Each structure stands twice: as C-alpha cells, then as structure tokens.
C-alpha cells in the first residue's frame, strides 16, 4: 500500500476517489466492448483451429473471489467441479492438481480429448513430447500454449460452441449477466469441441505451487521452488497436433514454467502495444 501519513480527507483524496470511479466506469465499458468484439470476431477462425478464448479484464476480480471458494465443493471430485451451463455448455473448474483420470473423463464427456498429467511440486514433463497446435484466440493473437498459476481455480475450462460463447457474451452485453458470471461460465480458456480436428487434443500438465505472488512472478522465485501455501498450482495448457508422448517427469527449471508464462504475456502485451516487463534475473544466480 502506498499510503501517505495523513488520515487524508482533503481535496486531493476526494478528487482521487471521484476520478477513480470515473476510470472504473470506463474500464467496465472497455471490458464490455471487448466482449462485444470477441463475439463478432468469432466466425473468422471458424474452420481449422480449435477455439480458445482468454478471459480478460474482469478476471482480476474473479481471481480474488476464487480464493474464498478454494477447496472445491459441488459435483465432480474434490479436485475439480463440473457445472452445466443453461445454454448447454460445460464449465470445469480445476481446484487442485489431482485426479487426472477424472478430469480427462469429465473433459471427454464434454467432447474434448485430453491428456492430463499432475506431477509432484517442482517437477515438469520433459519437452517436447507433442507438436503444439497454433491456436487463434478470440481476443486476437495466436497462442501455442498457455500457463496459468494461482490459488483455487487457477484453471477454469469452458467447453461450449462458439454460438454458446456468443450467446453468453450477448447476455453480458445486454446486462443480463454480470462480467463475473460471464467469466465464470466461459472460464479462462474456452474450448469449442466442434472446432477440434480428429488429430487435435488438449494437453495439460501441472504441479502444486508456485506462489502466485506477483513479485515472484516478476522477479523470479527466491527459493528453488515455492509451493503456494494457499494450495495454488500452475498448469500448462496446450493443444497438440497428432500424437502426444507420455510425460517423462523431470525437475522443473527454477521458477517452474513462469518464464514461459512471462514469454506468453510479453507476446500478448506486444500485440497490444504494451512494452513487456522484463523479469529481473533471479538474484542468487551468478551473472554470465
């Protein structure tokens, strides 16, 4: 917190409060426009690539609320929860990196082939073991893979057709559902089973930790691998073209796949004209 000393009720603070409200309103408007754009842009990538959507703005709020509902209630196993959406879609919330076969089955039932590997903390699958498919995201840009980290439902997979996705975003636009509800239903990845080719499948691997502390994400971990005390995990998500080799567990590089995550963020940021933040080198490492 960057709080000044004074208990501040003065002009500057009052003005700040009012201006922040103004900015927040605009942020909401921007998120609304984004959803609108996403829904109209969808048909462009109809044919080949599996559909992958990323949750934008409102996910910040979602992340905060998610912590409270952490240990997975609801149907499915404790490790994940399956919710059926009114429009016919399915949302799978992955609460913890456990019960890989169960999650595979849940995805299969929703129409998605997958290979899921959960590993002990500090481990990762040796790469490469499949050919990653290049996927166009609804929000623009191409994605070859994606890493998510955080406590609770770091990974929420929405499985629904593009029509259902559009319908949800239209409901959001019309104000029938809130931004949180929209993101809750579509997840931080949205997959359209009808867009998958016969050789394409989803590959997810992950492990407990690291701490989702942003300082850690930016500066790299100070310890070799920090397991998040709140039960956070990280999961890499990719779509494979063709066969997927089995996971051969190897020691995760320092910082897990956060470097990869930073790379993806940097790419995404570059597309939007935002200069990426260069992660500072981990302090303990000797300079080259």
């Amino acid at each position, binding site marked *: 917190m*960057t709080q000044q000393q004074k208990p501040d009720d*003065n*002009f*500057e603070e*009052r*003005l*700040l409060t*009012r*201006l*922040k*409200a*103004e*900015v*927040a309103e*605009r*942020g909401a*408007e*921007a*998120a609304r*426009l*984004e959803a609108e*754009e996403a829904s109209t842009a969808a048909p462009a990538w109809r044919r080949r690539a599996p559909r992958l959507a*990323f*949750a*934008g*703005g*409102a*996910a*910040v709020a*979602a*992340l905060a609320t998610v912590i409270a509902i952490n240990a997975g209630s609801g149907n499915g196993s404790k490790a994940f929860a399956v919710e059926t959406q009114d429009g016919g879609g399915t949302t799978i919330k992955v609460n913890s990196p456990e019960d890989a076969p169960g999650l595979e089955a849940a995805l299969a039932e929703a129409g998605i082939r997958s290979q899921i590997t959960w590993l002990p903390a500090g481990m990762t699958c040796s790469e490469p073991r499949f050919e990653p498919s290049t996927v166009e995201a609804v*929000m*623009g840009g191409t994605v070859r893979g994606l890493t998510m980290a955080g406590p609770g439902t770091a990974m929420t997979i929405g499985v629904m057709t593009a029509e259902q996705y559009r319908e949800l975003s239209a409901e959001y636009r019309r104000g029938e559902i809130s931004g949180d509800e929209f993101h809750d239903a579509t997840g931080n990845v949205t997959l359209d089973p009808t867009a998958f080719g016969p050789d394409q499948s989803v590959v997810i691997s992950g492990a407990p930790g690291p701490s989702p502390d*942003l*300082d850690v*994400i*930016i500066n790299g971990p100070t310890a070799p691998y920090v397991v998040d005390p709140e039960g956070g995990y990280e999961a890499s998500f990719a779509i494979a073209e063709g066969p997927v080799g089995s996971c051969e567990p190897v020691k995760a590089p320092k910082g897990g796949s956060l470097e990869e*995550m930073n790379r993806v*963020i940097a790419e*995404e*940021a570059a597309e*939007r*004209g*935002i*200069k990426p*933040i260069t992660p500072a080198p981990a302090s303990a490492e000797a300079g080259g």
Partner: protein
Amino acid sequence: MEPQPALPNPPSALSRRLSVVAAREHGVGPEQLRLIGIDADLFELFYREHVEAVQHFVVRRVGDRERAADLTTEIFLAAVDSAHNYRPRRGEPRSWLFGIARALVANEGRQRTRQRAGEARLRGSALLDEDDAARLDARIDAAARSRQLYQAMNRLPKSERTILELVALDELSLKEAAAASGMHPATARVRLHRARRKLRTELEAAATPQTSTKEKR
C-alpha cells in the same frame, strides 16, 4: 474504414496486474500510461505521482482557488480521456500531462467568461472544504511572483511564450518542455533564447524604481 476505437482493448488480467506492480516500483511509465483511463489502480499511481506538480502548475497561472480546483480536476479528466491516444514519442508521461495542462489553462483563459458549468462532468471546486481552501490559498500566495511573470509573458509570441513558461515557470528541462509543447528540441532552444531576451528587455523597461532587476551579493 473503421472508426478509431474509443477505448483500448483491456489487456489480460495478468498483464494488467503486472503493469500495476511495475508502476508501483518505477512510476507510471510510457508503457502503462495508455491504461490509466481504464485501470483505476494505475490511475491512482499516476495521480499521486503528479497531482502536486499539476496543482503548482495551475496556481502559477491562476490566482483563484475555485478555478484552480476546477482546472486540476479538468486536467486529470482530460488525461483520462486521452490516455489511450498517448504515444511514447510525445514525451515522458510528465511532459505529456503538462502539455495537456498547458492547453487547458490557455483555453481556460479564453473560456472564462463563457458558461462552463453545464459541460463539467465533475467540478473540482465543489470538493473543496475550508481546510483545503486555506491550503490552496497559501499555495496561491506562494505562487504570486510566478503569476506576475506569467502575465509579463503575455506579449511574447505564442511559440516563444510556451517554451519559456514551461522552462522558467514549471522548471521543466528544455527537452521535457519541447516534448510538452510538441517542438523539436533545437527549435525550442532557439525560441527559449529569444523569449528570455525579449522578456528581459520588457521587464527592464517596465521596471519601477523600487524593483531592482538583479540583486548582487
């Protein structure tokens, strides 16, 4: 032809949070500035970084506390409005903000007589209480000499006046001032030089007997 989108696409949740963390450490830089119009956290950092400078900027030109409060508000509202159009070549965030402030204060002079109440989204003066008023008045008093100088610049050509204002009054570096007023640094240097010379002759000519032009020690 597609119209220019009014607002930028929001970045992903994570890159947004990363921006906030970076801004907390290093100030709101050119990378984050475009987002201050849609991200309240980034805006707060930006505001705290610059609000004092903006107020000083205003009271060096305006001697009325209500108007100073209104102008401060309008400057930040304008920043929020145009942040998405910001390009790094327009200079550092501070220069950019001072450019906005300058345009608004200059415009304010022309608009003062007109009715402005109707169009104001947010009236800063309505947020003032007694303590603020006293504090602002003190600030306004302290800036009295700057305002005299500001008045004295009135007869300079606009381009020269602009650069002198920013350098002499607001203590921007020549480079920052050039960026804030959209001039090439070399042009700015020439104009600054001319403006200083003219102003000096003018002040000397207008000097009353009791104000010595220079103090020697």
